[in-house]
């Protein structure tokens, strides 16, 4: 049901009955290593190319999530997913393997919550019994497509971020065991004129703040309603800027705990190569589906708001001098049926 200007209230309480997260070697050495279902020690994952490796990550996560829900892939009605690759090839090819009716979406790194919001909406409307949402990213495929060859010796500035290698998948159903998707807010594109692709945190922070503000306006609640608000991949730079923006707009973020997935997935003091923090579709997906859902299950958290942030640019657009348009989508996940 539409709530306010740009939000959905899911009154039928769609349940995340199963989720899975698969990560690469650097994430397996990070502080959340124990929380992920599968950790690969090798970036190639036994494949011939990085693109194939990225697709494999998603296939593994999907297969794992389906098994965990005691389902077969034939029982999943729809799969909604996207990734960072041109023409979202990782998801297209994974959907070929899975054979599930597929809707491709693109929201750059916000794809994780975009796909989850749509999956919850379809289930909430009674249009399907099981819908799967997923996304993936790979450090080397992103470097290759958006930056320089991986082995090229270029010095990264301290504002740069490190694309997470991994995949996260969730299965949403009308009933079952698990946390409930209660609300979603669809973000609008915000462009503050940042043109530096090595400074994604600064580009994306205003989009996150905009969507968070819209969420609380639409639902007439305050941040204190949630135990945790987490942004997707702002990194240290974007996180600091987001906090400054909250202060500037007198937004009471202090009522709750505010974190960023890009800062949670790596240990920046040991893994200094990540610079400002993690990024990529898999950053918010693996942290949410791996770590945060488990925290909900353990009872350490009860109500969370995940705000996945994405930068909607291409290598071509920034070479032509265009600024970086950004977006953020928020999804609320709660324990025990939530409140209506």
């Amino acid at each position: 049901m539409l709530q306010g200007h740009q939000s959905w209230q899911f009154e039928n309480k769609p349940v995340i009955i199963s989720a899975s997260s698969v990560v690469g070697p650097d994430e397996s050495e990070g502080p959340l290593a124990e929380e992920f279902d599968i950790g690969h020690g090798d970036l190639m994952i036994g494949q011939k190319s990085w693109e194939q490796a990225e697709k494999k990550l998603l296939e593994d996560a999907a297969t794992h999530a389906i098994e965990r829900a005691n389902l077969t892939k034939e029982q999943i009605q729809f799969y909604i997913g996207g990734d960072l690759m041109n023409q979202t090839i990782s998801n297209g090819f994974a959907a070929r393997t899975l054979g599930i009716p597929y809707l491709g979406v693109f929201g750059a790194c916000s794809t994780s919550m975009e796909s989850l919001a749509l999956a919850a909406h379809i289930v909430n409307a009674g249009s399907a019994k099981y819908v799967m949402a997923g996304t993936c990213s790979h450090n080397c495929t992103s470097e290759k497509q958006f930056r320089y060859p991986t082995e090229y010796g270029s010095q990264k500035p301290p504002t740069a971020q490190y694309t997470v290698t991994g995949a996260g998948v969730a299965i949403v159903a009308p009933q079952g065991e698990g946390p409930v998707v209660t609300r979603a807010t669809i973000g609008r594109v915000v462009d503050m004129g940042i043109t530096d692709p090595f400074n994604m945190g600064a580009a994306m922070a205003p989009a996150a703040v905009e969507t968070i503000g819209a969420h609380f306006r639409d639902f007439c609640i305050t941040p204190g309603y949630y135990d945790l608000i987490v942004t997707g991949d702002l990194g240290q730079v974007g996180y600091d800027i987001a906090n400054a923006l909250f202060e500037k707009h007198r937004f009471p973020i202090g009522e709750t705990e505010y974190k960023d997935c890009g800062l949670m997935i790596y240990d920046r003091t040991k893994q200094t190569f990540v610079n400002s923090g993690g990024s990529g579709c898999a950053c918010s997906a693996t942290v949410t589906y791996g770590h945060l859902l488990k925290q909900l299950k353990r009872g350490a958290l009860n109500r969370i708001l995940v705000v996945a942030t994405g930068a909607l640019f291409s290598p071509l657009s920034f070479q032509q001098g265009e600024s970086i348009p950004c977006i953020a989508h928020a999804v609320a996940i709660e324990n025990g049926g939530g409140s209506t």
Partner: protein
Amino acid sequence: MSFASRSKMKKVTPVQRDYQLLAQSIEPTRPIARNCMRAFIAGGAICFVGEALMKVFQRYFGFTEQTAGNPTVAVLILLSVILTAFGVYDKIAQWAGAGSAVPVTGFANSLCSAAIEHKSEGLVLGTGGNMFKLAGSVIVFGTVSAFAVGIVHWIIGIKG
């Protein structure tokens, strides 16, 4: 870098300007003094190796001062390509910055890294087509500037 790229912006609204000022006050800047020091040390070290190789080629292999440059460059290129292939050069470069980018080793690294990167797309369209992706512009503008300098030299030569 962020400042230079931002000043390219033609139209910035007051809201965007305010935000960019706020963001700039929070973002960590590139440690320029430290980067310069490291570039000096790393670049100097590479040139020192080059100089030592020159002397070795002159003393033990019968090259003259004019001809010893060729085998020296070949050895440096080989070293750079080996380090790139083993995935070490990019890590050195993160520390060294311009120090490892400017010498001939940086040029070899740009060719080698692009060749490795696009190997999966095949020998002709992948490796062959993309090898000069980064180095190509160096060659183009190197040739253009050499041509310009040549013209100037020729004109001065006529007058002189």
